[in-house]
C-alpha cells in the first residue's frame, strides 16, 4: 500500500508543479461556499477552506481534489442530510469539523461517504453528532487516520456506526477515536486491512465488529466500556495483537466474541475486567499466546465446535472462572499457561508445576447451565463441589488440562504502542 501511495504522491506532486491551483474558500471571500469552490476547481486542484460555518447540505466531490480545512471550518448538515459524498479517486478530506447528520431509518446518512472510490485519505476530521460517521462502500486503497467520531447515542438504538466499511479492500484505519455510536468500527466484507492504534469506547453495541472479513490485522487498539465489547464473526485469517479489552460488562457483553473464526492468531492482548474475556464458538485452528486475563468474570468460555485450539503462555490472574469449556473438540491444547489458582508445586525447580492443573471448575459448568446458581459462588458447598471434581473429574471434559502449568507469570509482553508510521503526513503538511 505504501508504494501505491508513493506513486500517487509523486504523481500529484508532478502535476501540482505544472498546473494545480489553490482555491480559497472563506465566508467573506469571492468564493464563499465549499460547493462553489469544488465547482470551480479542476482535477488535481486544492480547495482550502478557512474557518467559518458552512451549512450547504450535501457536498459532492466528483473530481480528483484535496479539500483541506484550516483551523477546523464547520460543515453543518443541520440534522437533515448526508454531508460529504466522495465519488472520485485520489481525494483527500483533511481538517474539518463535520456535524449534525440527520437520523434516518430508510437511508444510511453519513458525515463522509466514500462511494466506489480508491486511493482516498480522510484525515484529522472531527465528526460530531452524526448518524453514520465515515462510511465506505466498495472502496479500496485508502487511509482513515486521526479522526474523532463522537455521537450522542446513549440507550437509543437509532444510531449508526462511527466508521463503517462495506465491501472495501486494503484500508488503514489508524489512530481514530470513536465513541457514542452503535459500533465504533464496523467492517463487513472487508479484506486485507489494518486497524491500528484506535480507541473505541462507550459505543452502544460493539467497539469493533468484523463480519465476513478475511485477512485483516488489528493491533494496539483499546476497546473500553462498550455495550457488548468486540465481536469478530465469520472471518478467516485474522491477527489480533497487543489490544486492550477493558471494562465490558453485561449479560450479552464479551471482551472478545469469536464466532466462526478460523486460522487466526490472538497474541499479546490484555483482557481486564470483562464479564467474559473471550467467548469462542465454532472457531477452529486459533492460537492464543501471551495474552493476560485479569479480573474477569470468565477469562474464557469455549463453546461448541472449537477444534485444534492451542493455548499457551497466557496469564490467568484473579478471574472468577478461568475456563469454561463446553465442547468435546479434538486436538485442543491448554499446556504451558500461568494460572493464579494453581495449587501445585515445583520440586525440581524447572519453572513448570509437577502436578497437572485442571482449570475448569465444576461450578463454572453448573453456572453455564443454570445462571441463577451464581449466588452460591462463594459458599462452602461450592468449594467442596469444586474440590471433589478436581480430585476425580467426572463432569468436566477430560482433555481440559494443563500438563505443564507455569509457576511464574510469563515476562510482561511489550504492550507499548510502537511509534506509528505516518504515511501521508508529509503530503498533507506540504499543502497546509
Amino acid at each position, binding site marked *: 500500500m505504501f508504494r501505491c501511495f508513493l506513486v500517487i504522491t509523486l504523481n500529484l506532486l508532478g502535476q501540482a508543479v505544472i498546473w494545480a491551483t489553490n482555491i480559497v474558500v472563506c465566508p467573506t471571500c469571492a468564493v464563499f461556499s465549499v460547493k462553489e469552490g469544488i465547482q470551480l476547481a479542476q482535477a488535481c486542484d486544492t480547495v482550502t477552506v478557512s474557518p467559518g460555518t458552512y451549512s450547504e447540505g450535501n457536498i459532492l466531490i466528483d473530481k480528483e481534489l484535496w479539500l483541506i480545512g484550516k483551523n477546523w471550518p464547520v460543515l453543518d448538515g443541520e440534522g437533515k442530510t448526508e454531508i460529504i459524498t466522495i465519488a472520485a479517486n485520489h481525494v483527500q478530506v483533511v481538517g474539518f469539523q463535520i456535524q449534525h447528520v440527520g437520523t434516518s*431509518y*430508510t437511508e*444510511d446518512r453519513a458525515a463522509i461517504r466514500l462511494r466506489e472510490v480508491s486511493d482516498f485519505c480522510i484525515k484529522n476530521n472531527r465528526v460530531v453528532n452524526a448518524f453514520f460517521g465515515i462510511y465506505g462502500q466498495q472502496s479500496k486503497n485508502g487511509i482513515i487516520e486521526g479522526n474523532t467520531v463522537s455521537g450522542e447515542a446513549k*440507550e437509543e*438504538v437509532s444510531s449508526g456506526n462511527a466508521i463503517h466499511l*462495506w465491501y472495501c479492500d486494503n484500508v488503514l484505519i489508524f489512530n481514530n477515536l470513536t465513541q457514542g455510536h*452503535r459500533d465504533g468500527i464496523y467492517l*463487513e466484507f472487508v479484506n486485507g486491512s489494518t486497524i491500528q492504534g484506535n480507541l473505541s469506547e462507550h459505543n*452502544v*453495541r*460493539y467497539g469493533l465488529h468484523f*463480519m*465476513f472479513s478475511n485477512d485483516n490485522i488489528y493491533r494496539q487498539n483499546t476497546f473500553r466500556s462498550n*455495550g*457488548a465489547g468486540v*465481536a469478530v*464473526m465469520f472471518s478467516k485469517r485474522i491477527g489480533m495483537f497487543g489490544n486492550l479489552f477493558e471494562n465490558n460488562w*453485561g*449479560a*450479552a*457483553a464479551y471482551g472478545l*466474541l469469536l*464466532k466462526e473464526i478460523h486460522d487466526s492468531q490472538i497474541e499479546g492482548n490484555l483482557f481486564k475486567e470483562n464479564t467474559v474475556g473471550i*467467548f469462542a*464458538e465454532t472457531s477452529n485452528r486459533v492460537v492464543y499466546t501471551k495474552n493476560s486475563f485479569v479480573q474477569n468474570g470468565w477469562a474464557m468460555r469455549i463453546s461448541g465446535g472449537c477444534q485444534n485450539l492451542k493455548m499457551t503462555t497466557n496469564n490467568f490472574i484473579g478471574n472468577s472462572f478461568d475456563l469454561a469449556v463446553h465442547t468435546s473438540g479434538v486436538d485442543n491444547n491448554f499446556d504451558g499457561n500461568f494460572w493464579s489458582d494453581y495449587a501445585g508445586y515445583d520440586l525440581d525447580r524447572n519453572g513448570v508445576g509437577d502436578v497437572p492443573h485442571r482449570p475448569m471448575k465444576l461450578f463454572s459448568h453448573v453456572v453455564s447451565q443454570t445462571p441463577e446458581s451464581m449466588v452460591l459462588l462463594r459458599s462452602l458447598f461450592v468449594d467442596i463441589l469444586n474440590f471433589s471434581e478436581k480430585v476425580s473429574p467426572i463432569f468436566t471434559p477430560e482433555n481440559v488440562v494443563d500438563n505443564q502449568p507455569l509457576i511464574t507469570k510469563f515476562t510482561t509482553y511489550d504492550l507499548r504502542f510502537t511509534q506509528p508510521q505516518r504515511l501521508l503526513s508529509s503530503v498533507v503538511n506540504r499543502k497546509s
Partner: protein
Amino acid sequence: MKNPILLLLASILLASCQPSSQPIAYGQDECAHCKMAIVEAPFAAELVTKKGKVFKFDAIECMLDYLRVQTDMEFSMYLVHDFNAPTEWLDAMHCKYLVSEEIKSPMGGNLSAFGTEKAAQDVQIIKGGETYDWASVATLFRK
C-alpha cells in the same frame, strides 16, 4: 365454579401457562442464534415455544436459520417487527417480506418484514428488490 377464589386461581394458573411474547431490551438482549447484541428494532424477531420459552433474534434471517437447525422444538408463535413501525409484534406467517440490497439487515440477509403487501411494495418501489411471503422466504433462506 362456585367459589370465586378458585375461579381466580384457576384463571391465573391458566394464564401463566399461555405462551406469550416478550419485548426486547435493546443493547442488553443477545440473539439466540448468533450471540450478537440486539440493537436494531426494524429487524428484530422472536420465537415462542409451545411451553412459553422465548428466543429473541437480531435479524429475521437468524430466526430462519435457527428454525432450520432446531428441528426438534415446537413453536407456538413466530414474530417479526414491521419495518416501518418496529414496536408491535406481528405474526410472521402473515407478513410480506422484502429482500433488497438497499436495506441492510444485521446478518447480511437484507431481509425486512411488512404487515401488508402494499407497505412492502411501496418500499420496493423506492429501494428495489424482491418481495416474498412467509413460505417462499423460508425456502429462500433454507438453501
